[in-house]
């Protein structure tokens, strides 16, 4: 197992309140790191720091060379980041949304591949209606459909509360997908209140004990 | 000395109103810059007291 990330001495405060301090952890390839903690513990902030969006967290991050050129910031090429804000543009169709997400990775997929991914998350027949006319759960699925695209360059997923607004079947499907990705060598960092039952899951508890 | 009497000094050759208004504004601005740190200071002290109260609980 190769180490993909070493995080040392992370520190974050908000409104004069320390969220986490002296936080150290590492991330191995093929691992699912489940970041746990109560509401407001800084899970989303931590994830945003890992992905390189937030400068609010102090401390050192060192990414493995395969994911980053300079070590500190992730290379946009190799990961999916599913944020709290789902990055689904309501005036665009699921198809356009997905094609744009792929384009931001500087890649080009045949549209059949995108249709296929949308089909997998249960959006058959909704591919070319504006995303704004879909339900909240369906919009969430548009965002999740990215994880079902066949893109070998993607080695890492960073998922912020991926199970939000999903029904029971969709939750189970996503669980299976995450596990399959980890088994094929991918690495996952996720925040969730929902527990995963898989051997490769390691938990990282931040904030006050649950 | 450019003026021979105090009255002349205050009159400023008919420009007294302008000159003294300008200097009054100047004094006000200087006063603002001298006094406003005190407000900052008071706020700091108040914050500190509040923090201590909170920690005692």
């Amino acid at each position, binding site marked *: 197992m190769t180490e993909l990330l070493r995080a040392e001495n992370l520190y974050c405060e908000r409104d004069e309140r320390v969220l986490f301090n002296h936080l150290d952890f590492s991330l191995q390839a093929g691992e699912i790191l489940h970041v746990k903690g109560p509401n407001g513990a800084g899970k989303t902030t931590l994830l*945003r720091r890992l*992905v*390189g*969006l*937030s*400068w*609010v967290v102090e401390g050192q991050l060192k990414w493995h060379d395969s994911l980053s050129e300079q070590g500190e910031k*992730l*290379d*946009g*090429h190799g990961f999916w*980041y599913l*944020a*709290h*804000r*789902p*990055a*689904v*543009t*309501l*005036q*665009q169709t699921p198809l*356009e949304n997905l*094609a*744009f*997400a792929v*384009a*931001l*990775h*500087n890649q*080009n997929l045949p549209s059949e591949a995108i249709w296929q991914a949308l089909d997998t998350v249960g959006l058959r027949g909704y591919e070319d209606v*504006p995303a704004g006319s879909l339900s909240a759960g369906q919009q969430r699925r548009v965002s999740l459909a990215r994880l079902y695209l066949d893109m070998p360059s993607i080695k890492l997923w960073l998922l912020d509360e991926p199970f939000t607004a999903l029904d029971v079947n969709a939750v189970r499907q996503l669980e299976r997908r995450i596990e399959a990705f980890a088994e094929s060598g991918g690495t996952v960092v996720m925040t969730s209140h929902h527990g995963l039952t898989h051997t490769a899951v390691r938990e990282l508890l931040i904030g006050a004990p649950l | 000395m450019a003026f021979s009497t105090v009255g002349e000094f205050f009159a400023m050759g008919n420009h007294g109103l302008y000159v003294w208004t300008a200097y009054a504004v100047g004094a006000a601005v200087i006063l603002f810059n001298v006094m406003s740190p005190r407000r900052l200071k008071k706020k700091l002290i108040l914050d500190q007291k509040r923090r201590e109260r909170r920690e005692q609980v």
Partner: protein
Amino acid sequence: MMLALAQMMRRELSLANRRRADLANPLFFFLIVVSLFPIGVTPDLEKLSEMAPGVLWVAALLASLLSLDLLFRHDYEDGSLEQMLLSSVPPQLLVLCKILSHWLVTGLPLTLLSPLLSVMLALPGSALPLLMLTLALGTLTLSLLGSIGAALTVGLRKGGLLLTILIMPLFVPVIIFGTSAIQAFVNGMPWVAQLSLLGAIAAGAFVVSPWLTVAALDVTVGD
């Protein structure tokens, strides 16, 4: 990468097309402000023609400014902006695409509408090409500089007003050179210097703006 940028450009333009109300507002605003001037000041054509360059310029800039607030707002709210900042395509280029398409859907239409309004203000017809050229350059510069302001205010609730306060002082030179070029032309004086200064400012803004915009977005989105 060219493919990604082309796709970005297509996305921006198609979004503008689907948010047509946002598109039309600046044009209506331009029309209304310009037609209020004769009513508010004087219907005397001679006086109007003297004021025309200034009125057209100020109204066009205010109209364009009106739409700048939305430059990053939608993308910020739905989370696309985060993804753009994380993209393996340089975000500066993505931002430049956004700026250019903003100009294409506001600055350019305003420029194209200006001949109609200049007739209402009795601007001499011979000045029309120069009016349109300077307006095109001016609105482009506004889009470029304004994107920095839009990036600085994107997360704020009352960003629109703040954006105006931030950008307007920076825009004084552009207004001065733009209007004085037209006035000089109308009065038969040399006008090339003003035009080239206008071009120089636009070129400078073109180089600097994407970098500063991304720096500002890193601050406001990374909060």
